[in-house]
């Protein structure tokens, strides 16, 4: 359990853009998911992307590490354009990113030690003892000790997320991407993940991008919140300013209320 949560103000990053998305377009068949999106992710800051299910948040996240290629538009990492690189060229870039998947995506056939040590063994020539040392240190950073020999199937949901986070930061990445990090966890476990995200920002100075539905989490960890709606950003501001946003689409999402037209149609169906 992480105690004494670090505050957002503790980080003094230079706030230069680390990742830039320029006029990003993506469609799947007839469905337009991203419609000319622009976004700059600043160094050492936590940007939270919120939006309804199916609004394209995860698609946006996948473009940052080129798991998806944009139909149109550009993706920059520092000053290097990465959306047009070959898979081999991307192998050099990707270890500078960490990615926490919604389902943790731990390798079932490997132990916790092998999972966390995987990227280290893949990209460095460190000996096994050194790898084990780093694995222990990363696991300790996420509050886990003595589980190196366990398999993912033997872990709880919260432990899986933390092991996956330890794996994501194994190579000390500059940017960590979180895809719905608190989904499926009970409130105390979800809050542990929030604290860990803050801790990593504070201690490692990483740039974080978090996709979430969880407004409590977003308000706690975000330096900046952006809201994606039908392929465009409709809000970009601080956690404090989102509560004052007059846009009903943002307001409904933040307050967890369904849209007035949906409510009306449900009431009509109920009365007939």
């Amino acid at each position, binding site marked *: 359990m992480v105690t004494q949560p670090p505050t957002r103000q503790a980080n003094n990053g230079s706030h230069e853009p680390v990742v830039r998305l320029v006029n990003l377009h993506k469609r799947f068949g007839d469905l337009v998911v991203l419609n000319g999106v622009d976004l700059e992710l600043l160094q050492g800051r936590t940007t939270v992307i919120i939006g309804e299910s199916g609004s394209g948040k995860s698609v946006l996240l*996948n473009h940052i*590490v080129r*798991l998806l290629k944009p139909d149109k538009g550009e993706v920059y990492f520092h000053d290097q354009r990465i959306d047009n690189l070959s*898979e081999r060229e*991307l*192998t*050099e*870039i*990707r*270890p500078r*990113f960490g*990615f926490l*998947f*919604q*389902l943790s*995506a*731990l*390798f*079932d056939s490997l132990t916790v030690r092998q999972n966390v040590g*995987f*990227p280290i063994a*893949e*990209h460095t020539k460190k000996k096994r003892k050194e790898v084990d040392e780093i694995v222990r240190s990363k696991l300790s950073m996420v509050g886990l000790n003595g589980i190196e020999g366990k398999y993912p199937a033997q872990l709880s949901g919260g432990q899986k997320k933390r092991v996956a986070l330890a794996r994501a930061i194994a190579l000390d990445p500059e940017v960590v991407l979180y895809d719905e990090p608190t989904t499926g966890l009970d409130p105390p476990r979800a809050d542990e993940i929030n604290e860990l995200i803050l801790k990593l920002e504070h201690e490692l100075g990483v740039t974080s991008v978090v996709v979430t539905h969880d407004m409590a989490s977003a308000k706690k960890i975000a330096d900046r919140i952006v809201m994606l709606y039908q392929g465009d950003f409709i809000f970009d501001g601080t956690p404090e300013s989102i509560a004052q946003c007059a846009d009903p689409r943002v307001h409904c999402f933040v307050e967890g209320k369904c849209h007035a037209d949906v409510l009306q149609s449900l009431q009509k169906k109920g009365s007939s």
Partner: protein
Amino acid sequence: MLTTIGASTIGTFTAFGQFGVFTWHMIRWLVPGLLNPRTWRRAMPLFYEVGNRTLPVIMVTGTFVGLVLAVQSYDQLKAAGFKERMGVLVSLTLVQELGPVLAGVMVAGRVGGALTAELGTMRVSDQISALTVMGADPIRQLVVPRFLACILLTPLLTFFCDLCGSVAGWAVAVLAKDIPSEPYWYYINYAIAKWDVMVGFIKSIIFGGMIGLIASYKGFFCRTGAAGVGQACTESFVTSFVSILVADFFIGYFMSGLYRGIYGFKSLV
């Protein structure tokens, strides 16, 4: 109607193109992978999976096919006065045709489906994406070892299938019918040339490689959800099975033509 046909045609060509790119990507990683000890370390558990777990079912299949061939052919061979040559019929059928095909089908069913399910589950649970994000090419990590396991072990399994079938044929000939042991093996030795063994060997290598590629491809690009994985497993087996039969015909046609071109016609009687 035209739209449906057009969409279906485009879909088929797209799938072939995707499979071609997938195969090319695998070959590019295979060559350096052969010299990398990590590739072989990753492949070792798969050798166990493909070899050890498939061997019993292959041996049972080979044995019963040998028994059936011997029982079915005995009366006709006896009537024609060739009953001593029963071993030739049983063994040649197994070595050139049934051995590679049966081993291939068994590997496709027993292992291909499991490989597809494993990779499909990895796909839907983002494990393949996790590999990509960590800068570890998933084709190098996952497909190359599976391809090696299938292509190297299918010929070995074919050998056991042939052996069991021939011994089972001998058991019928000697124990149940009135054929002495010595001519059974003598005629096998006389009729089955290195060429026949080579044809079976080449077929089994090609079938093994096809199973490894098809099973991996179907798992790699399976649709999301449990239904997607299930469908991918079925498609993997059906595609492998049909591909084995089609390839068997073309390899057989090509090799027999090649044999005639080099050695001329060879009579077994």
